[in-house]
């Protein structure tokens, strides 16, 4: 799952720091991800994992790091 998340981030987050130089807890917003890019990441993750982020997860902290995205996706895929 983590590698797939990283692939989505690499394609959609438009980071100023390459994703392979960021750890799983590296702040994606601090690395240059804009709010528009974070929406693109969200939509691409929904396509890639066939899920839909509910209202409760639509907040910055969900998309802040690879780890936080993974935790959210885990919650969604387990609960489906």
């Amino acid at each position, binding site marked *: 799952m983590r590698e797939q998340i990283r692939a989505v981030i690499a394609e959609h987050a438009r980071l100023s720091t390459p994703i392979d130089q960021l750890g799983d807890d590296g702040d994606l917003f601090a690395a240059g991800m804009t709010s528009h890019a974070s*929406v693109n990441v969200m939509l691409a993750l929904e396509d890639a994992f066939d899920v839909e982020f509910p209202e409760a997860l639509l907040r910055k902290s969900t998309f802040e790091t690879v780890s936080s995205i993974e935790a959210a996706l885990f919650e969604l895929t387990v609960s489906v």
Partner: protein
Amino acid sequence: MSEVEVTHATGRGATPAAGDPGRSRERAGVDHMVTATPLWFGPEHRPLFGWVHGPADRRSAGAVVLCPPLARELACAHYTYRLLAEELAEAGMLAIRFDYDGTGDSAGSERDPGRVAAWLESIGEAIALARRCGVTNVSLVGMRMGALLAAVAAARQGGVDGLVLWDPLASGRSFLREQSALQRLRSDLKPLDDGRVELPGFVYSAETVAELGALAMPEPARVPRRALVLTRPERTPLNGLIERLGVEPELGEAIGQDQLLEVEPLYHEIPKATSARIVEWLGKEEAEPRVELNVPVRDRASFHHDGARLTERFVWLGDVSMFGVVTEPEQRLDAPSIMLLNAGNDWHVGPNRLWVDVARRWAALGFRCLRFDESGLGDSPARPGVRSHVVRLPETFEDVHEAQDSLEPGDPTNVIMVGLCSGGYQALENALVRPARGVYAINPILHFTPPELAWGPMDPRRRICFPSSSLVSAYRNIPGLAPLRRGVRGIAWRALRLLHRDRDPSSWLDELRESGVRVLVIGGENETRPFGTPAGTGDAELVQIEVVPGLDHALMPAWHRDAVLQRMTEHLVEHFAPGAGSRPGRPSA
């Protein structure tokens, strides 16, 4: 202030009126003359606003109706649509730009009921307008939600020749989802708990949310003759939208959409390659004979707002005929006129359409209000030899002066200037050159790089700008310094004020006080920090600096807009409505 010299539309066709300056543009070393006529059309009691662009010889074989996106994307695309319309006219076509009911300059609000039906009816009215101009062959172009609405309108209405879907959305639901997620991820706002949904800069009612949720491309009832679909490869698939067109479309890439819609407005780039492809595609099958165009002229509209009957009319301001809209009540107070300045490179409807709300609300209170585009922005031409679509040019000083002269020729100081961001800055600067009765500056930015520094010294009229230096830019852009910057903002501003003592707000705010200019600055912590705590001399109450903690710079959240509008309205009524207790002294001219 010249007006289009034609009275109310009667349905009688007329060529663009005398007094209509038309628009000329120079490109690639060749003069391309096209006409551009603003007009009201559609229902008399609920007028729609639009522009008709046509070839200089007033003859065309086909018309193109440009269906705009919705909400914040509408503002991002406005200037691109203007250029596209001008290019279509240069290519020999009639192009109609318009604002849906409750958007842009058109009557109504996004809070009204029946939005989706009203937007589709607006497209129908624009198609009818094209036909009233004399053209039978009508094509539609739509971007994002404008594409979906155009496709639905074409399928329901029929008779559409070409259909261009530019970066289309597959459904109303995907629009709501993308835009509401953007608002949530941008500001970490909590969702509204009454069924309304907040998008960046706008709020849709529960009814509109339900209508949008049900909006998708229907089975093809009436099929356009041909279609062009331009998409972003990286975006979500279109879920059958193409299959439901009923015609095999030409497919292509929507190049440059991310740089148009997904960057801060000040930095967006016009997708010229995509525009050029659309113009070429629409122009390549011009089978009909060219007919003489008769553009119906209707330069003023009357409608009810906040229980008052208002009139809106077009005005042309200054040397280059800047475009503006004046909103007036039936009975005007003996009070200063209101001037609403451009915010960044947004057009004259203001940030998130706030200037339209302000103009109509304050006109209902008895004030005359002007919203206009400074030269080179929005719907106004640039000054000769000056680049278009550049913010904070030195020429803005002349633009504002000329608008003052036009609005209040007897006493140009009898105005209240209102601006946000660059507009707030400019209002303060202009009031130092020529006093005004009042200035409302929302989130003014005093620290920036004036564009003229790219070719010479800073304009000497700039009294309050703290010009950015390369050292400051480097300090701002080093990623690792972000936490440090947050901690030392106050110290940094104190240092800047020491370095530029002559630009310290405490000195020029005193000057405004002494001229009798009543100043209200409303801003977040960052935007008001440069003002420090002005001690002031004389009537301290004349200058008010009000900090609203957490105020969003562009007023994207609804409560931020509501709070600012309410505060300005209270101040206006208290200080500028005749009979109010404390009136400022008349400034010296």
